């Protein structure tokens, strides 16, 4: 969970398009890894986590299309957080993280000068919104 908090903070601190894209890449990878671990924890959340992981991979790949994305070699690959928390709590956390990411990516899309950057941000934001939608708690 600390890893998630740290990356959440890094997203909040990200200044400029390139920094948001790098943070976004890492968040998508973290969500993919975490969802993979949590999918087997709860039979009723298996579909949500499975499709959330797919959306995370799509979001990460969308970011790769952005011309402003920095070279990524040497970037730390996250180990999935150990499921110290239950699947429901993990879903809450990942949903909130994805929601925050989608907001930052939409903002970045509006500010981007390059059309390809804008398109990449919007596509990635859509995937982040999908994740948030899949993992969000119900109204009841």
């Amino acid at each position, binding site marked *: 969970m600390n890893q998630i908090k740290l990356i959440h903070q890094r997203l909040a601190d990200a200044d400029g398009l390139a920094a948001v894209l790098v943070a976004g890449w890492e968040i998508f990878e973290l969500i993919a890894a975490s969802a993979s671990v949590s999918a087997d924890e709860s039979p009723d959340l298996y579909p949500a986590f499975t499709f959330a992981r797919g959306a995370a*991979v799509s979001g990460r790949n969308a970011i790769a299309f952005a011309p402003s994305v920095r070279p990524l070699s040497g970037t730390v690959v996250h180990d999935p957080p150990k499921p110290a928390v239950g699947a429901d709590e993990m879903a809450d956390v990942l949903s909130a993280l994805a929601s925050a990411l989608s907001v930052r990516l939409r903002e970045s899309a509006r500010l981007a000068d390059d059309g390809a950057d804008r398109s990449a941000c919007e596509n990635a934001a859509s995937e982040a919104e999908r994740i948030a939608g899949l993992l969000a708690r119900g109204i009841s």
Partner: protein
Amino acid sequence: MFGDFLGTGRKHLEAAVADGDLQGADLPDVVPALRRLVTVMSLCLEDLAPCDEIEATVRTDLTVWERAVIDAGTALQIAADCLRRSMTATGPGQPAGHRAPPAARHLADAAARLTTGRDLLHTHLVLDPDGVSHDQSEWAAAVTSLPVMRGIAGEVADWSARLAPFTAWLTGLAPPHISRHRADRSFALSPREELASASQWLRAAGAALGQALDADAVQPADLQLLYGIPAAVPPQRLPPGPGGESVVELCRGITVSASRLRALVHRGRDRAIWSPDVTSGGWQWMAQAAAVTSHLSELALRSLAARAGQLDGLGVTDQRMSRAAESMVGMREAWQRVDLMWNTIVTERRSRPTPAMTEAGDLLLRMGRLVWASPQWTPARAHRGPRRTPAALAPRPAVFTAVVSAAHQAADALARMAVIDLASVQAAARNGRLYVPTRSLPEGYNVPRAFAPALTETVLEAQDAYYDAVGASIRAARDLDEIAIAIAAPSKTLALARTAAAVQARRRGGYSTWPDEDSSYQQPGVGVAFKHSRASTGLPGPVERAVRARRADDPVLLLRAVAIDNAARQLIGLADNESALPEPGVEVGASGAGYSHDAVQLAAQSFPEGAVLNSSARASVGRSPGPPPDRAHPRQR
């Protein structure tokens, strides 16, 4: 379904030849209808015949049924000709508006139903301009199988046996001789004799088929398969609505989606091999949908296992249902491995929704709504609901079989999808369409882009993951095949078709269009068969794999491994031909030419491909070497 038309046609036939209806028989009404029916019967047998009667006289490889349908078809053609000549003699038919007697109407209706049934079977095959038949649907192999041949021929034998005495009875209504004048010439016609001949030829047809029936009787399963063959026109999509559907309606919707998915997969199989619209995102989504559907099927089958002990007369035990649920676990795990593999492999395009994804989505949604008692269930966490109890899922035996059918349909459609996805992923690998994130490459690679061409090892892992998914899906489908037959579930036709198609494929010496454990798709992931080599599939064979597994990167060593794989493939090909061919005195020219051609290919082959090779070595390889460094960045479309 074919059985609908055949069953109705049979009822009309029985009504036509029933004693009570013969009183109103009138030759100008009855004989044309009878001739139409006999003509359609002969055409049905002609469809089944592997050659004409002239070629059959010199063929020594025909089965008893093949010879019987040729002989009986010829007899029925002659019978139809006799009936045509008797029509000429008995005069023109009745004027329009005239109401034909019941016997004539029933015969005409029987002919119309049989014609429609034959048309239905023809939707599964299409002839090219050279007259060569091509599969038009996944049912084609079943339609041309021995069980279906037996079923149709058995029906025709029965119909011929009923029509022969009826036609003989008609001779009593016909005049012995008639004289006709045409263009200053006189003709002496004998309608009675023609009808008598027609009757005899109908008996002859029945007798020819009777010999085959004695040698190899029609099995009940043959007729079940024959009657269950649908038209090659997928049903209309049934989008899941916001309102609640009953368990039976959900099962029906799953069957529709599975049928549509099978048809889409079959029609798109050639396109999937080359189309750039097939993307990593699409493959991953389908793998996820397959994994989730397997998971949901497992939950449904576990509920049915609990319910099996509570319902009487099901014909299946709870242990057997539990085994089927376990095979779904294996299927889910295999698809999950495919899904995870796509985390690190991408294609050059972003995913777009496809019709197959829509059908897989509908199927998944309904499977979820079967398991969870929420009419609004979706994979989203917010739409969760309480689990449906076993009693609510299967309140009575009929619903129990419907749920088994639904799971069976889903597993079968996903097995088919796995086979096609495997082929299209292999094609994408050969065409250099697979990339990996640069960060996932081993140390020492300096690619200034986010993505780089996938390494050979990665491609092989992907291929192995798909082989596992194909195998696990087929195993799950076969487990449900057995249960579907045991409880006479509506989906039992799938099981019968799989068996018939597998036998038919072996007779043809090709691959089945119906995935089966015995088919050639079922390759072990690790012990790759020698028929897979650089020269055949473009991917490493077993020796090259073994060398690569030892981290050997000497190009000469790898080249030797490739050469050994190719030579082994050739040797096995020789052995296959050796065992298949030699009829004494038969020339082996074509095969011989093939060997020399392969030898030329082998001699011309350069170093094997792979990340261990430098660019100059890559450039010398005959097939696509993958994109150059300046193309290593995926393009967005």
